């Protein structure tokens, strides 16, 4: 651990925040690095979209990152960067948009003009516009529904949680709204929400002070419009458990996400306490967490089961939490990866030829019951200590590369912190079991939640009936698995199958009608 502390101290020494011309600057100088990374962040995101133009900020950022700039065409920009293996891209979140630029230090002088042009002089040409918008239209029309049922259920859950507010819509907008976005809209949005009054400059790697000063001076030339960030809408409180089932043609399983509003974020010291409880219950992609053990490891129901107390991007791809997606309006959630549907079980096992529904109802009951038990009973001392120790090391893996380190530092500022990971280390050490159990009771409840299930058309109606009637949902194992299950597992199954969920509303939606 000695080295880790040394690293943290070094980091603090090289870290500066400079207020210059109202511009926030986050620096991370690493003279041994072979590259320079810029992260230019604007406090806008999809909540800055006009009410009648969802997807406009995303379109604007895409045009800046995937279009010509400074009179140089997009194709020529790609050609210039190719021999350097340099790159840049935009990442739009709900509340921020971040442009990340990376270049080998050998080519920083040649690369810098491209950085400047992309930010200050995007061409916004008609040719780029038609290409970029076709892609965005395609995403909202097709890709979001067809690529991953897991992500689909996650976005659909957000659509329920934030219904009616500015956090509701997909970053890319809706099928109807994207069609209405014009090039003039994009030009106006650029001036309005990519300004020198809502920008944070992040720089890491092997850069000179002269370069930093040049960048600061150039960013001061961004549109000088007065800027007041939009206030993110809060997640809605469900009336009981409200379920939306999305019926899809030829789905192979039932993908489930469920969640409820959460009143704290990384800004709050209490977040560390809830983080310990959440890690024990459902640490992302960890086989020793409770949900994973119960649903996957013991019962063979799916590929994994996890829980979250903040937004987690691209969970299917990321093993560790990525930076760059900070939010001040939050919710907690449970991710149950696709479970079997009745039509599949019927064809796979003769002994299950008569099942009416698959495993979704049982899996949902099991996950919510585990939270219910934790809220009632709290964490044990042993689990608390093991999880606290785990997080003490694990969170140090979040920021390893220069780009990751810079991203986490910039997120720290969003939450009103200086170096969140270093501060979290201290908070975790100080957290007591009593604080954890108090946070669990204060922030988690299972009576009022939203649930989204993406499933096959054949499964939707029987599942909806089972849910709204709170019908018993006995686990339908194959004989191969059932024969070896210990008695205590089967006894617990009986309790789970009859566990009462406070379901008050179940709606079946056709896949084509989602996200409208």
């Amino acid at each position, binding site marked *: 651990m000695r080295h880790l502390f040394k690293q943290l101290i070094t980091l603090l020494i090289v870290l500066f925040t400079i207020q210059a011309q109202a511009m926030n600057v986050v620096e991370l100088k690493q003279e041994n690095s072979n590259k320079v990374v810029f992260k230019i962040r604007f406090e806008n995101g999809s909540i800055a979209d006009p009410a009648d133009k969802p997807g406009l900020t995303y379109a604007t950022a895409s045009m800046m990152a995937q279009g010509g700039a400074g009179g140089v065409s997009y194709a020529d920009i790609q050609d210039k960067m190719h021999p350097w293996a340099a790159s840049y891209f935009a990442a739009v979140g709900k509340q921020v948009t971040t442009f990340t630029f990376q270049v080998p230090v050998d080519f920083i002088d040649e690369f810098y003009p491209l950085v400047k042009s992309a930010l200050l002089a995007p061409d916004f040409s008609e040719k780029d516009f038609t290409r970029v918008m076709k892609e965005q239209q395609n995403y909202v029309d097709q890709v979001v529904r067809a690529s991953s049922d897991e992500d689909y259920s996650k976005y659909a859950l957000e659509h329920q949680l934030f219904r009616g507010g500015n956090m509701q819509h997909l970053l890319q907008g809706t099928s109807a709204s994207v069609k209405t976005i014009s090039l003039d809209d994009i030009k106006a949005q650029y001036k309005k929400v990519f300004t020198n009054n809502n920008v944070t400059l992040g720089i890491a790697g092997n850069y000179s002070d002269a370069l930093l000063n040049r960048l600061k001076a150039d960013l001061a030339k961004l549109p000088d419009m007065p800027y007041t960030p939009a206030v993110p809408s809060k997640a809605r409180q469900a009336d009981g458990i409200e379920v939306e089932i999305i019926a899809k043609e030829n789905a192979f399983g039932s993908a489930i996400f469920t969640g409820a509003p959460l009143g704290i974020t990384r800004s709050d010291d209490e977040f560390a306490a809830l983080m310990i409880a959440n890690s024990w219950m459902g640490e992302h992609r960890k086989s020793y967490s409770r949900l994973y053990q119960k649903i996957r490891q013991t019962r063979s*129901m799916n590929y994994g089961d996890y829980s979250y107390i903040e937004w987690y991007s691209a969970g299917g791809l990321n093993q560790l939490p990525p930076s760059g997606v900070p939010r001040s309006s939050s919710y907690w959630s449970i991710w149950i990866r696709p479970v079997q549907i009745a039509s599949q079980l019927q064809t796979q096992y003769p002994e299950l030829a008569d099942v009416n529904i698959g495993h979704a109802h049982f899996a949902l009951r099991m996950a919510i019951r585990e939270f219910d038990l934790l809220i009632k009973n709290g964490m044990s001392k042993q689990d608390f200590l093991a999880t606290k120790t*785990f997080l003490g090391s694990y969170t140090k893996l979040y920021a390893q590369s220069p780009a990751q380190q810079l991203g986490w530092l910039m997120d720290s500022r969003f939450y009103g912190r200086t170096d969140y990971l270093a501060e979290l280390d201290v908070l975790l050490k100080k957290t007591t079991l009593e604080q954890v159990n108090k946070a669990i009771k204060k922030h988690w409840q299972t009576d009022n939640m939203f649930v989204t299930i993406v499933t096959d058309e054949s499964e939707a109606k029987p599942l909806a009936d089972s849910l709204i009637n709170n019908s018993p949902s006995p686990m339908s194992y194959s004989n191969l*698995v059932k024969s070896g299950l210990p008695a205590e597992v089967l006894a617990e199954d009986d309790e789970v199958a009859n566990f009462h969920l406070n379901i008050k509303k179940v709606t079946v939606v056709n896949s084509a009608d989602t996200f409208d």
Partner: protein
Amino acid sequence: MKTIIKSAAMGLMLIASGSAFSADPTTAASDKILPYPIYQHKLANGLNVVTVPFDSPGLAAFHIITRVGARNEVEPGVTGFAHFFEHMMFRGTEKYSKEAYGAALKSTGAAANANTTQDRTAYHMTGNSDKLELMFDLESDRFMNLKYSEHDFKTEAGAVKGEYTKNFASPYSQINEKRSETAFTTHTYSHTTMGYFADIVDMPNQYEYSKLFFDRYYRPEYTTVLVVGDVTPEKVNALAKKYFGTWQRGSYESVVPVEPEQTETRYVHLQNGSIPAYFSMSFKGPAFSDSKIDMPALDVLSSIVFSNTSDLYKKLVIEEQKVRFIGGGAYDSRDPNLFTIQVSMVDKEDMPYVLSEIEKAIAKVKTEDVDAALLERTKSNLKYGFAMGIDTPGSIATSLSHYIQLTGDPESINRLYALYDKVTADDVKMVANQYFKADHLTIATISDDELGALQ
């Protein structure tokens, strides 16, 4: 290249100061693409132990690469077994039950997981380098003494089915399965790493075979232990000897059937209107080699002809906007595999036109020299692209794992990049003619039509 050389010098300084009694690295790093020396040490039982010290205070990446993958699934009815076995490796031993293994793993605070490809199964964890001995203890125990009940075996099969179920949502996964079984009739590359669904459903019945599988492949001669980060080769080698020294060498070698030469273009189609129309062209390509020019020349070719700086991309994606995405490249593998060009369409009606444009680009690269300056820019991109990507212990270890799976030797990475330097315009022309043959082509399509439009 200045930066890479500078970094290499720093890497050497780190070694010199930290390990006065270390064995010599297998290469001096100064003129290599990897700017850090690679220390290799083979135990008497055949286990290869690789250490790459890297300036990551307090952190180390610990990888174990077993050179068994879907390629080795030569018997009928057991496709997907190498991947399934990856799952079983988390099911415990006599010393560490699955619960105890989980608790011990949690105590390391590491990010740990595993994955399987056609050619290998890789287990990896990145965490506190102070926990290196515990990592060795945990990993050696399960590699040498894995023991699971028949019930646990049957139960884990459900998780594999769950993995297939989540993947199946993507039509691209579905066409990938169809493309493999169309392009290959005999070689085991005909099935994906996940395996056929019927075999996955039947996995719970294969308990006895699983024990045979472990006995055959989880042996030191199939395995490399790789540690990158805040470590020394002396420490890693000593721990390897202590924890893996008694592992018994095996004797099994699977005979992978050779794919006969393809004699005509093959077609496969998936009717699915949920995504934009798509097609791929897969030519039979070479096996990976770090001594022949073929694969490096194909990598250079794929960048010049199919990347987002290619003429084809500029015309079809940027100018005409008939294509959403185009890309292509050869798949690195132990046996000859596919060079695949993939295209996502804006309008399915344009498929024949886009196909003809790709055919024209291929005809051109077969007959005309690629531009000399473009060739140099492409080589520069390959080198700097690599240098930009190796900034954590995990990313270095993942890069080296790739080459360990292919040849068993992490030095292949340095040899490959040395070969890139030697690729000439003639080499590019040669591999275009050698591998882009219509008789060796498989075309796969996705659209809402009942039949593929390109047949």
